[in-house]
């Protein structure tokens, strides 16, 4: 796939999925603490979401960041709009705004503070692992 095709595929994925998270690793096996925390917050709200692992090809991250004008991973999108990275999602989770924006009712047992998330698994690509 050319870089342009990758960018088009990313744009299409963002357009086609109500809630989509670009992350390092998978929800079951996050490869970075920030991705793990973001997954844990979405799971605490019990909202379905699509996850894309950016690690398999460095061009995914490169094209995603060029498209979103956002340098770091994870990146959460809702209805085609960038909600933010882990810090913004955490702030919005704790204020209750995240549930509102995503249009979900937070379960009564959802923690008030952002959940810590699973311990990250080692990333398959060493070089990406340090790109916080």
């Amino acid at each position, binding site marked *: 796939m050319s870089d342009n095709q990758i960018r088009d595929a990313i744009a299409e994925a963002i357009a086609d999925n109500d809630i989509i998270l670009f992350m390092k690793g998978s929800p079951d096996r996050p490869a970075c603490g920030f991705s793990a925390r973001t997954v844990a917050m979405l799971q605490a709200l019990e909202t379905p979401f699509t996850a894309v692992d950016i690690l398999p090809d460095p061009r995914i991250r490169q094209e995603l960041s060029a498209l979103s004008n*956002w340098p770091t991973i994870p990146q959460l999108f809702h209805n085609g709009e960038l909600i933010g990275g882990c810090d913004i999602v955490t702030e919005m989770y704790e204020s209750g705004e995240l549930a509102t924006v995503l249009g979900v009712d937070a379960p009564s047992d959802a923690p008030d503070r952002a959940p810590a998330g699973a311990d990250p698994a080692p990333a398959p690509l060493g070089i990406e692992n340090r790109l916080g």
Partner: protein
Amino acid sequence: MPSADEVRSRIESAIPGAEADVQTQDEVHFSALVRASAFDGLSRVQQHRLVMDVFQGELGGAIHALELKTEVS
């Protein structure tokens, strides 16, 4: 490796009216609370972009991670 003070002064000189409180344990991972009048009317994403733009190319390099919180002052 940048010190917390360097990161603070770079944010404050790049963003009009900004006051930054920057912490670091290791001069690689930083956390910053930035208050600025320039954030008024901007979304959180836009506010964070203003700060991250100060360190273009260094995020993921000399600055491994910048944990960020922004507020309108």
